[in-house]
């Protein structure tokens, strides 16, 4: 710092700014520590452990790695029909739930934003199911879906409609799990949309109204275009969340009937914990993880390009 005699002031300024950045960084790291520790301990750590044991024939219940098998677990996973079946079940669940969970909360959020009095009540009412734990939701719906005695069976039967075999047939099971999931996780996307709606300035609507735009025109030309980034975000988060389905299917159906709804996470659970094939299950997890990363990457590239275009 002393070598430059011509511009000491500049050097000095630089030093100070470096110092402040350094101090800011320190504080930043300090504040991030709790998160980073937990993130490392419960996310990065296990992923690395999983990566390592995916190359070994590890038994979940033993405190040893087992024999090194190189890529054997991976070839076994890729060639296993049950793995791909369960991957398809997770994908099918995503295809079934994402349209509802992207569109319905948007409609509900727009409607709720138009309510003038007691708006808080509707916001809470839509969000409330989201905070119910998965086990409770699954049990409540198990009662509703019960053949003969359940609410659905009673109501549908009472008005003379055919009652689907919610828990005993594959189609019925998908219907059951889709209804449950839409009701249960609806609230999260609803909140995202509500927040985004609040960001749209009132005066845009006022200006449009003065120009004589109808409510429908306002929604089509103002609300939806301005919500587009949020819709994209909700779509992506929802695809990832739906691909990660496990709890409700496991608790309500245990992957049944006859494993025709078993999602990939349950497949990993079954092989890894029930039959102790830790190494194999870790390899299956890695394959699944890479697929999720690929989907996220595609989305990021797509949005970045769109951002550059704009």
């Amino acid at each position, binding site marked *: 710092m002393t070598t430059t005699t011509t511009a000491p002031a500049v050097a000095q300024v630089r030093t100070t700014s470096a110092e402040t950045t350094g101090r800011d960084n320190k504080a930043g790291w300090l504040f991030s520590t709790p998160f980073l520790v937990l993130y490392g301990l419960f996310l990065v750590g296990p992923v690395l452990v999983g990566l390592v044991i995916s190359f070994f*024939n*590890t*038994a*979940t*219940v*033993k405190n040893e790695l*087992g*024999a090194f*098998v190189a890529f*054997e*677990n991976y070839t*076994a996973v890729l060639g296993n029909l049950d793995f791909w079946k369960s991957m398809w079940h997770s994908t099918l669940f995503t295809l079934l739930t994402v349209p509802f969970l992207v569109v319905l909360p948007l409609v509900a959020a727009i409607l709720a934003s138009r309510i003038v009095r007691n708006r808080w009540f509707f916001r809470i009412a839509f969000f409330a199911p989201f905070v119910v734990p998965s086990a409770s939701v699954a049990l409540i719906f198990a009662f509703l879906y019960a053949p003969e005695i359940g609410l659905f069976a009673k109501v549908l039967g009472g008005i003379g409609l055919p009652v689907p075999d919610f828990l005993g047939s594959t189609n019925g099971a998908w219907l059951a799990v889709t209804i449950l999931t839409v009701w249960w996780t609806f609230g999260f996307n609803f909140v995202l949309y509500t927040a985004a709606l609040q960001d749209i300035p009132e005066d845009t609507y006022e200006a449009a109204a003065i120009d004589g735009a109808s409510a429908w025109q306002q929604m089509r030309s103002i609300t939806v275009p301005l919500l587009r980034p949020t819709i994209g975000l909700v779509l992506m988060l929802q695809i990832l969340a739906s691909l990660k389905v496990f709890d409700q299917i496991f608790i309500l159906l*245990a992957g049944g009937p*006859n*494993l025709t709804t078993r999602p990939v996470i349950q497949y990993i659970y*079954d092989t890894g*914990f*029930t*039959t*102790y*094939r*830790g*190494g*194999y299950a870790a390899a299956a997890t890695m394959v699944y993880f890479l697929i999720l990363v690929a989907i996220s990457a595609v989305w990021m590239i797509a949005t970045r390009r769109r951002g550059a275009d704009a």
Partner: protein
Amino acid sequence: MRGSYTRRNFLAMGGGLSLAGLLSACGSPVATSLTGGQPATADVIFWHLFGGGDGENLGTMVEQVQKTTGHSVESTLLSWGNPYYTKLSLAASSQRPPDVAVTHLSRLPILAQAGLLTPYRETGLEQLGVTQDKFTPAAWEKATIDGETWALPLDTHPFVLYYNEAAAEKAGLLNPAGDNLIDISGADTFVEALTELKKATGGFGATMPTITDPSTVWRWFYTVYSGLAGPIVEDSGTRVSVDDAAMDEAFAFIQKLTTELQLMPASATPALANAQFSNGEAGFLFDGVWNLPLYAGLKLPDGSELKYNMVPIPALLGEEPVAYADSHALIIPAAGGRSAERAQYAAQFVQGLLDNSTIWTGGGHVPAWLPVQESAEFQELSPQKNYVDAAFNAVYDPNGWYTGAGSDFQNQMGGVVSTVLTGATKPAAGTSQIKSALKKLADTNAPVS
């Protein structure tokens, strides 16, 4: 922030107090989860998987044992099948298992090979007089792997023949005393008997679920096959040892009964098979003994009571009768931190359950504990006493890490058997499908061996 109590102080104090409360009893689950010990909320912690009638019977037994030993017992019922075994395995591998647990003997190999159990010779049960000579030999043998015994069999629950007494009498199959069938062993005699029964009932000679119930069809197939040959896999499930000729013959026989001779329904769900036997439309039913309570006190369409009896399935293709069976057994999971005192409680609890297993036979099970099996009390129990032989001729699922009650193995095998029974698959094709499914399982890297 006035006064000496700030919110922060208050919270810290409250948190500290509640933490102290949780930790004060050092056996509390919270404390043990932090220290890595076993929770000690009762003298004996017991896990099982029985709901319904079996669950009630077990509850009574546990109460009896508590009275005699004076020890407190905490029983936990977990979901039957894979969820139970998963929880048990993970609890044991993390050193926090129950003191005593129930297992199917067919699921024992993987638990034992993973090192999750206390071997019998270290349980102290021998000193209490719980010894090999007091158990049904077939069950004890299944509880023993490579010379080491790992479980104490509580019962044997074989796959047996239920017969409708009226139909059997009409078909001339009842013995003079009327308390058993005449000898119908041998494939030809058996087919004749079913033909007569079919005439007598006007429906079917025999029934059983043939679709949507892979475990039941697997039990039926393995009973027939085992009359001719040994286990279908060996070396802990790593080598396929199917006898092709025997398997072809077994498949051909069970298919002939359903499709060609139509003595049994080719396509029956469990509900249909149940109805056919309950309504007297089929003379025999092949099913597990545990369904005994299901048929007790049922009324036939004409209002009279369904009178039935249960006997071992006779020898069919082979010389000797065999019965596919499984056993419930008691295990003491390995736990490094278990005190000698608690180990003693666990052993006494196991002994107590065995001594009280007369109650257990209410669920149709044959007690494996010979002092109970040979007791006058049990010898008076009908139909239970009629199929005790089946427990001695028991054939279990072959040893392997993937076999056993509720396993995917049974689903896969049963899936093939089902298509043979309905006529969709030819016997030889059934054999090759079984073999290729087994090959896949055998070639998989075994997690334990």
